C-alpha cells in the first residue's frame, strides 16, 4: 500500500444549478462586452435585433475593463442589481 498526499485543493466539486428560466424576456437586459476585438460588433447586432423584436425591454450596455481578468466585483453587482437578464459576448 502506497500512501500519497493530495496535491489538489481538496474541494469536492459542487454541482451548480441553472437559475430558473422565465417564460418571456421582460424588464432589463444587460449586454456585457468582455473587451475582446469585435465583441462590440456582435453586441451591436444583438441589441438591434432585441430592440426590433422586444421593443418593451430596457437594454443596458456594459464592458469589462479587460478580457484578461475576471469582471470587477462592482461591475458584477451593478449588472445583477439593475438587470433581469445578461448576455455576455465573447469574440475572436
Amino acid at each position: 500500500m502506497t500512501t500519497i498526499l493530495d496535491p489538489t485543493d481538496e474541494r469536492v466539486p459542487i454541482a451548480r444549478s441553472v437559475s430558473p428560466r422565465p417564460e418571456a424576456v421582460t424588464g432589463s437586459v444587460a449586454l456585457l462586452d468582455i473587451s475582446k476585438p469585435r465583441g462590440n460588433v456582435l453586441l451591436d447586432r444583438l441589441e438591434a435585433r432585441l430592440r426590433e423584436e422586444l421593443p418593451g425591454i430596457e437594454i443596458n450596455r456594459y464592458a469589462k475593463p479587460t478580457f484578461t481578468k475576471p469582471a470587477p466585483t462592482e461591475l458584477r453587482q451593478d449588472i445583477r442589481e439593475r438587470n433581469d437578464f445578461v448576455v455576455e459576448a465573447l469574440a475572436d
Partner: protein
Amino acid sequence: MPELLPPFSLRDQHGVDRAFPPAAKSVLCFAKEDCPTCNLVMPLIEALHRDTTLDVLVPGQTSDGNATLIDRHDLTAPVLDDSALKVSFAYDVDTVPLVIAADADGSEADRLVGFDKGEWRAFFERHAPNLAVDWDALPDWRPGCGSLTQDPVIGERLRAEAENSPLRARRIEIAPADDVHEFLFDQGFTDGLPVVPPTPERVLRMLGGTRRDPQEVVATIPPNLAPATVEKVAVNAVLAGCRPEHLPVVIAALEAVCTDEFNIHGVMATTMGASPVMIVNGPIRHRLGMNMRLGVLGQGDRANSAIGRALRLTVRNVGGARPGGTERSTLGNPMKYTMCFPEWEERSEWPPLHVERGFAPEDSVVTVYAMTSGPSLIVDQNSRNASQLAGSFGLVMEGAHHPRAHHMGDCILVVCPEHVDTLKVDGYSKDDVRTRIQEVTAKRLRDLVADEVSGTGLDPQRAQAMSDEQLDRMAPKFASQDNIHIVVAGSEAGKFSGLFHGWASGPMGSMPVSRKIED
C-alpha cells in the same frame, strides 16, 4: 506530579502482548542487537528480570535482532517487538541502551543512557539493592549507539506517521494492485509526464527546505481561488522532482504569479497560450547548482527543470488551471511544462536583472514573466560591432507576434556570451542595446497599415482620418524600451541569442513581478 511515560502495548518473543505500565515497578530497556553496549548490559537486564520483582521489558528495534539478542544472552526477560519503532519514537529514544525505571503508575523514576559504571551501580543500588553484580568485571564506560529512530530515512517516515505530524493534506491510499504511476496519471495530478509520488516522507523532507510553517498560506490561486499552503506547494514540488532546497524558489515564484499585477488567471486562461517564465538571480543560483551556461533554456538540469515544473503543477493542481478547463490555449507551448533559468550574472559587466529591478546584488530573487513563445533564436554570426549586432536583435524582434504589431509589451532577450563580447567591444550597456532595438524597429505609421497582404495592422479607416504628419510619425516595436528585459545566459560557444515573446502587457494584462527568495 511526575509526568507519565507514554503507555504502549507490544508483543514479546512468546507472542504475548505486554502492556506498559504493568501495574508494578518496572524497568524498560530500549536496545538493538548490533549495538555493543546493548550487548554489554543485556546480562544485567536479564538479572533484573530473573532475580528481582521488577517488571522488566526490553523493546528491541528489529525483529531479527531481537531473536539474536535472546539467543546470544539466553534472555528470559520479555523482549518486545518494536520493529515498527513506534514506541521508540514515542519515547524519543536518541541513544540505546536507554534504561528507564518507572513507578507502578507509569511515571519515570530514573534513567540511564549508554553505560557509565558509576551511574549503573547507583541505579542498581536504588532499584535492586540485593542483586549481586560483579562490577569489577565491567568496563568503566561505553558509549551507546544511535537509536534506529535517528536514521534519517526512518525518522522522516516516523515523523510523517506520528499524530503530531505537521502534514494536514488529505492522504490517498493507493491499493497494492494499482500501479502508483498510472494512478497519478488517472487522477489528473500530472502534466502528462511521470511525477514523483508525493509520499508523506518525501513531503516532510521537502518541508525541511523552508523555515516557513507548513500551514502558512503562500497565496490564493485562481481560478479555484484556493489557498495554497506551504505544505501543498511542497506536495507539488515533490511531484515535480524538486529537492528540498529548491522549495523556497517555488514559494517565492508562486507568491509572484498570484499577484494582481502578474494575473495568473489570465495568463493561464488566454487562448494565446501564455506561461510563466521564471528567471533566478543572486547567490541562490550557485547554492542550487542551477545551469546558466550550455543549454540553459533546454533540458538536463534538475534545478532549472524541477523548479519551473513545480510552479506549473501547483497552479494546475491547487489552482485548478487545467487544459480544457479554464486553460484554453489554442496551441500551448513547451514552457507550459517548465521554464526557469538563472542569469549568468558574472559573464557580463552589466547590472543583473534583479539589480536593475531594485534589489541588492546579494539578494536572491525570482522574477516571473508571462510569455507566449520562446525562446526563438536570433542568429547573427557575422556582426562584428555592437550597433550591428543590436540592430540584428531588433530586426528579429520586429517579427514578434506580427511584424506590424508595434507598441508591443514585454519581451525577454537572452544574450549569449559571444554576443555579450561583441557588445562589450563598443562598451554597449543594456540600455544602449534597448535604444538600438527601438531605433532599428521604428516604422512610420503609414507603413504599418493593414492591407491586401495582411489584414493585421493599423485600421485603414483610422489611417485615412490621420494627417500626413501623423502618418509619418515613427512607432518603435516596443511601447517603451523598458519592455525589453535583458539577461545573459548560454554557453561560451555560439553566436545565438534568444527571444521570448510576451503576452498582453501592463495593468490590463500581465506585468513582470520579482520576489526575494527567503529561506
